[in-house]
């Protein structure tokens, strides 16, 4: 399965975003999010916002919420460390925050430079007050993302869904 990752789950997230009323999707590009990023760009009801650094995302989504729109953020595990201080905004103001994080450094990783942040992702998020949920298998994705969106927007809390490296497929060098 690693060499030919199941592509179907990748196409299931965009309809969930639509159903959750998400209008702004901030992201730092990542291979694992490619299909979703393209779908968000192609959707006239959504604004896909490319960032230079993940820390911008908390601000963008806080601004969106102040202006009455829901948002979500897409990033790779390496970007989580960039967010830590900006997550104080989310926590102290109780902005709803939904992020999907594609994982590196945890399943057959070739590039050792990805391992420290990959292994520290969950602890960094939890330390910054974010609720963490994981998807290990394709069938996890729809119920987990749907429930995470409900948790984030209905309870006004910060939620990260980690899309495991085993799910995404190992990067081939």
């Amino acid at each position: 399965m690693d060499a030919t990752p199941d592509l179907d789950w990748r196409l299931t997230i965009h309809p969930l975003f639509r159903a959750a009323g998400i209008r702004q999707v901030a992201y730092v590009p990542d291979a694992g999010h490619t299909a979703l990023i393209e779908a968000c760009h192609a959707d006239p009801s959504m604004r896909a916002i490319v960032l230079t650094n993940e820390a911008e995302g908390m601000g963008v989504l806080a601004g969106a919420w102040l202006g009455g729109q829901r948002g979500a953020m897409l990033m790779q595990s390496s970007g989580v460390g960039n967010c830590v201080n900006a997550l104080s905004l989310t926590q102290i103001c109780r902005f709803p925050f939904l992020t999907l994080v594609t994982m590196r450094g945890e399943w057959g990783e070739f590039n050792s430079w990805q391992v420290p942040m990959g292994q520290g992702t969950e602890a960094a998020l939890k330390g910054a007050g974010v609720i963490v949920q994981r998807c290990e298998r394709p069938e996890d994705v729809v119920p987990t993302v749907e429930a995470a969106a409900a948790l984030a927007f209905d309870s006004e809390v910060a939620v990260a869904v980690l899309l495991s490296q085993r799910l995404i497929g190992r990067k081939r060098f």
Partner: protein
Amino acid sequence: MALDRRQVVARLLADRGDLLVVSGLGSPTYDVATAGDDDRNFYLWGAMGSAAPIGLGLALAQPDKRVLVVTGDGEMLMGLGSLASIGVQRPANLAIVVLDNERYGETGMQRSHTADGVDLAGIAQGAGFPIVATVTDESELDRIAREIRTATGPILAVVKITAGEAPRVLPTRDGVELKNRFRKAIGI
């Protein structure tokens, strides 16, 4: 010539109409509060570098209202990449005013990068902002105050201010209250 920060912000916010305001942590938050507390002010007390990104998300969510970010040179420098992100989205209703005293005022007035020639307006121009300015006198300030309300942005104006410290006027630090009152004030 450098201007007085309190007079600058008072001028920018005079007759503010439906202007939505985000202030960067430190003195810009105190400056905006001094000009008059308003439910449509979102004051930052932390999350340094986030003022411009908040302005971006807000401007995209409220395209029929004008959004003004008032921040300092140090705060803007920490969020420099957001100028590139704003340059991509080009929200016409967003303006950023950088109150530039060339110092990190909150931490003891250490020299910032702008004291040694880093040009924030030039960086914004390079990021694709259609209107950029470096303001050093009252007439330029009046022009920018008008453009913030009417011109097709995004706009970035660096306003050179004197480095003296003004009396601290502290608005609420309750982030939930700031968020909720802002949303209520604009009918959400």
